[in-house]
């Protein structure tokens, strides 16, 4: 019942410290955003991310998600850039519009950049449990409350949806018409939204009490059941990656 993409596994990628994976993802996103040439961008994806996906034994879900998210953008990017970007190399004309090669090239670069950024994030999410990631961030100074909000939201959103469905069922059973013209649908919102918000607020209060009873607000050091290993080589790798990221940004800005 959790809204997470995580696929359990025992691969090397899974075992990496979550912060390392997060840093990798960040560097990949920055690389995707700053690299000028198509070749290099594609190389990052093909020789950087794909092997990591293979190592993580998640190649098929990884590719599936990348394709599924990127292709709607690609579908609109290509015609838009193709017809409206500046350029001189005309490939063919359609009435007043002409498809230019430069536009297609721009679309390809943008798609590649999107793939790299999205691929990195997907890689992170498929191999890292959100609570483990949050936990390592807390170890490095993230407030526990923020971590709680992120993780609990993932679990509570499905519950929220279930409640919304229960409210919808209850109001339909009282004669509320939810099909029909826009005005009718808008009017149907009030008896749906109000119990959702009020009910959620009441639940929040109870959950706050439950958290308090579990010593959540207690000051003092917290321990952890799950052990997250952070070997020296990974720490060194993270610094290196951050340097690369800084370098990419500097190069791009100058």
């Amino acid at each position, binding site marked *: *019942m*959790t809204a997470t993409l995580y696929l359990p596994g025992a691969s090397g990628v899974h075992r990496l410290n979550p912060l390392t994976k997060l840093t990798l993802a960040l560097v990949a996103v920055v690389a995707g955003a700053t690299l000028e040439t198509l070749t290099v961008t594609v190389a990052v994806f093909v020789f950087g991310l794909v092997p990591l996906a293979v190592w993580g034994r998640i190649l098929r879900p990884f590719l599936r998600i990348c394709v599924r998210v990127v292709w709607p953008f690609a579908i609109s990017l290509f015609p838009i850039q193709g017809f409206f970007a500046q350029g001189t190399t005309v490939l063919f004309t359609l009435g007043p519009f002409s498809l230019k090669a430069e536009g297609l090239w721009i679309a390809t670069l943008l798609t590649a950049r999107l793939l790299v950024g999205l691929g990195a994030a997907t890689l992170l999410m498929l191999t890292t*449990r959100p*609570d483990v990631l949050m936990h390592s961030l807390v170890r490095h100074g993230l407030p526990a409350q923020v971590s*709680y909000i992120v*993780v*609990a*939201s993932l*679990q*509570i959103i*499905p*519950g929220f949806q279930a409640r919304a469905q229960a409210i919808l069922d209850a109001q339909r059973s009282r004669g509320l018409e939810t099909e029909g013209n826009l005005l009718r649908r808008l009017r149907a919102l009030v008896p749906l939204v109000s119990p959702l918000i009020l009910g959620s607020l009441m*639940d929040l209060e*109870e*959950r*706050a*009490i*439950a*958290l*308090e*009873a*579990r*010593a*959540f*607000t*207690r*000051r*003092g*050091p*917290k*321990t*952890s*059941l*799950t*052990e997250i290993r952070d070997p020296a080589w990974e720490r060194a790798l993270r610094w290196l990656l951050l340097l690369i990221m800084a370098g990419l940004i500097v190069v791009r800005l100058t």
Partner: protein
Amino acid sequence: MIEVHGFSFTYAGTATPALRDVDLKVPKGQLCAIVGPNGAGKSTLCYALAGFVPHFFRGELKGQVRVGDRNVPDTPLPELSGEIGLVFQNPFNQITGARFTVLEEVAFGLENLGVPRAEILDRANEALRLTGLGSLGDRSPYALSGGQQQRLAIASMLAMRPRLLVLDEPTSQLDPAGTEALFTHLSDLVSSGSMTVVLTEHKLEWVATFAHRAVVLAAGQIVADGEPREVLASPAMEALGIRPTYYTQAARAAVASGLAPDGRGRPLPVTLEQAAEFLRWR
């Protein structure tokens, strides 16, 4: 274990006190049930024992609440958590959402208390075993039934080894099987000697079967206090809005018609076993 003396509480923004001049002493190792109609102040008393009244629910407080050697109203909530466990009606809202498995959910409180890792694992597993959830450690808390979720809430409290466990209408949303399981586990905990339990309950049959003591609360005051069978079968209950079990009603009717063998003088039954014994002809 528990000493409540002259305790009154009025919620902020209301005029009538929710509890008035309550005196209650609960010895260690007792399973004490609090019964009474809705609005009598049962929940308020539970929250007062756990410190949420007045720290979470503000209002005007008079009198004393001592649990163990703690003066509850004067102790900040974070210091009380772990010593006094609180379980309430809705099983779903007691799942923190911070952890993905049942074992981790139970360990959550211990992590917050800063307990060393090896000890966390032992205590969490023990708590799961005590509540009959031992085989469910790897499941998502959201995949459990309502009754199991309620036992998970109890396990989460037990792992912190509280001296007192307070439960506010814990079986309200459970079916009979879930209710029986819950009461059985509570009873086992208390008989092992390490725990005191205070709970509020409407289902009198279960109170009579499992509780050591019944305290009746009505309109913010304690009106009866004693052995469950005596208290719950007393004729004064009806006037307070507490309908006795059908077993009591049947026995009372039999005695009134002069039919019950040796009816006068014997305490009326509250449970099935007691009623069958009471009404059986030799």
